[in-house]
């Protein structure tokens, strides 16, 4: 079952400008892997070489924030990718 993933503005260069996209996965890790297959390079902008969510990124599954890539994702649960912005 695909989830809707809401994509922060700085990451939309990977999703060809789409504000929300679909991806599949029972865990956050699987979902991000699927997202990266569809939009190559997007995962690296969110997860570093040590497999940690980058410190300027927050990921919310539904309304619940998660720091854990093993976080389970229920079918149809929306995922929000939030990125620190700097423009003023």
């Amino acid at each position, binding site marked *: 079952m695909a989830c809707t993933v809401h994509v922060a*503005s700085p990451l939309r260069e990977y999703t060809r400008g789409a*504000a929300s996209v679909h991806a599949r996965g029972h865990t956050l890790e699987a979902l991000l892997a699927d997202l990266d297959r569809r939009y*190559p390079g997007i995962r690296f902008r969110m997860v570093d070489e040590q497999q940690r969510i*980058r410190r300027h990124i927050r990921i919310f599954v539904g309304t619940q924030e998660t720091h854990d890539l093993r976080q389970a994702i229920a079918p149809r649960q929306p995922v*929000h990718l939030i990125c620190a912005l700097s423009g*003023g």
Partner: protein
Amino acid sequence: MTLSAAERRRYSRHLSLAEIGVAGQEKIKAARVLVIGAGGLGSPAALYLAAAGVGTLGLLDFDRLDESNLQRQVLYDAAGIGAPKAELARARLAALNPELRVVAHPTELCAANVRAIFADYDLVIDGSDRIATRYLVNDACVLYGKALISAAIHRFEGQAMTYVPQRAPCYRCLFPEPAEGLVPNCAEAGVLGVLPGVLGTIQATEAIKLIAGIGTPLLGRLLTYDALELRFHEFRFSRRRDCAVCGERPTISAPQDPPGFCTLEELQRVRCISASQLARLLESAERPIGLIDVREPAEFALGHLPRAVNIPLGRFEQPGVALPGALELVFVCRSGVRSLRACALARRAGGPEALQLEGGLLAWQAGVDPSLLL
């Protein structure tokens, strides 16, 4: 601080609101608010705060007005192009509301001056255009006990949050560390002109609420706004026990400039080269060009320009980085942010004057070689 008869007339619509009334308006008159960045966000925020009667209003901005600012920075008009923004803003706000004390700070905020500047204010509105400044402002607000209303924008999206000492998590609790180079500003990414109008007005709203002591502030809540979708979202976040500035064992006890911090003056001295100019230069082979790619190794491995050498930005923050002995060096990165800083740092370290690829490899991909993988 009592209101004069003229002030009672001027603020009559506020006085009619039971939530504000005379007592609330007197608090607004006594308030001292500092706006960091008199740009897209700072313009509407400062205009509304001046109109609302905030008694002392400070405007901090180091820049001069550029023609491209006028698309969204509604404090200014075409006659001011080239003049210091802080001074232009002071004059505009003084004209709007002559009863206020409006203070211009035409300077760049840094660790050395933040304490003295913040001392005269109770509440800070952050509308700066640099990620390093956002952390400096947050840390100073936590350390000196100032309320902070922070907002930021990117293309069609904005976000806002409010911090009040002892009552809420801070900006570092939300985003613990800056990601310089991965968070483009308006100049690099573009921005819908009306977008900062929405976010700056939210900042002014929060300021008035905090000053008057009414409503529910955005404490522990990140508000996001997507103009294209016309959608607001709200995300709750908590204080981090390991927050470096407001956590249980803070490691930041004084405001500090980040490693490799460059002043705006240093950044403005860097010369740029466009993607098409660089392509011609490389083709002509008239003189040897050294291409330095300052992205992380994993990004470099995905795709890079032929003969480019990978020296990540972090290396320039340490002494003794060795550069190729080419006659002319061109620094590149994904969007042009990291290469700009690398150029400035290399120059500061006494290295040769280098150019930076304007718009980065994204511009190269768009204008020269669409097959480049990024």
